């Protein structure tokens, strides 16, 4: 399964090159999520991503399998980091490969929407005022809803 949970940074360029070589793909879409200083709880200096080891891998693998069922993907990769990150650090990488762009865009979008609301990760942000857990966003649940309403 092309799913990885890791504390270490990833190199988006290396991952794209590795997946694309010899794939026969006509379309490669990537999404990279990064830690922003302008966090959900205010201006932050760092964040810590807690996760549920084991379930995180299983849940992302389930999402990947669902994406492959819905779109004709030639390949697919999801990397999610955990641990302490500072603004500018990468958090998540999704890469989708397909013959045509609709499938690659659709699957990358779908994976991000579901990942946000179902992969067991939790963000705690650090700011001058202390530490605070990030609350789930209604907009993320709405985004996920898009995929089940038709």
């Amino acid at each position, binding site marked *: 399964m092309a799913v990885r949970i890791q504390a270490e940074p990833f190199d988006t360029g290396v991952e794209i090159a590795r997946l694309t070589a010899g794939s026969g793909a006509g379309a490669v879409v990537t999404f990279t999520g990064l830690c922003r200083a302008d966090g959900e709880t205010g201006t932050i200096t760092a964040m810590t991503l807690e996760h549920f080891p084991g379930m995180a891998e299983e849940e992302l693998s389930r999402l990947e399998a669902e994406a492959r069922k819905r779109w004709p993907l030639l390949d697919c990769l999801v990397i999610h980091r955990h641990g302490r990150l500072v603004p500018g650090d990468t958090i998540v990488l999704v890469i989708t490969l397909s013959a045509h762009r609709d499938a690659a865009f659709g699957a990358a979008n779908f994976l991000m929407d579901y990942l946000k609301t179902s992969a067991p990760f*939790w963000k705690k942000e650090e700011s001058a005022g202390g530490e605070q857990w990030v609350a789930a966003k209604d907009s993320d649940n709405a985004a996920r809803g898009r995929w089940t309403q038709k």
Partner: protein
Amino acid sequence: MKLRYFAWVRERIGRAEEDIALPADIVTVADLVAWLKTRGEEYEAAFQHEKIVRAAIDRAHVKPEANIAGASEIAFFPPMTGG
């Protein structure tokens, strides 16, 4: 039964996991939450807004009405905020 807690559920209960012998009349996840809330202030705080807390049985998301029969591990955690 092994119980696991994550994020602020873990912080409020004060531990990441525990093994507890459950009374025989606990059938669903909702029953388990109701029973845990009788075990002390820390559980009451964690499950104060119990509809917010999510559950997973053996690493798969479940709803409050899910039957816990056969489960080897039940986890409780806030709504996910990854990605």
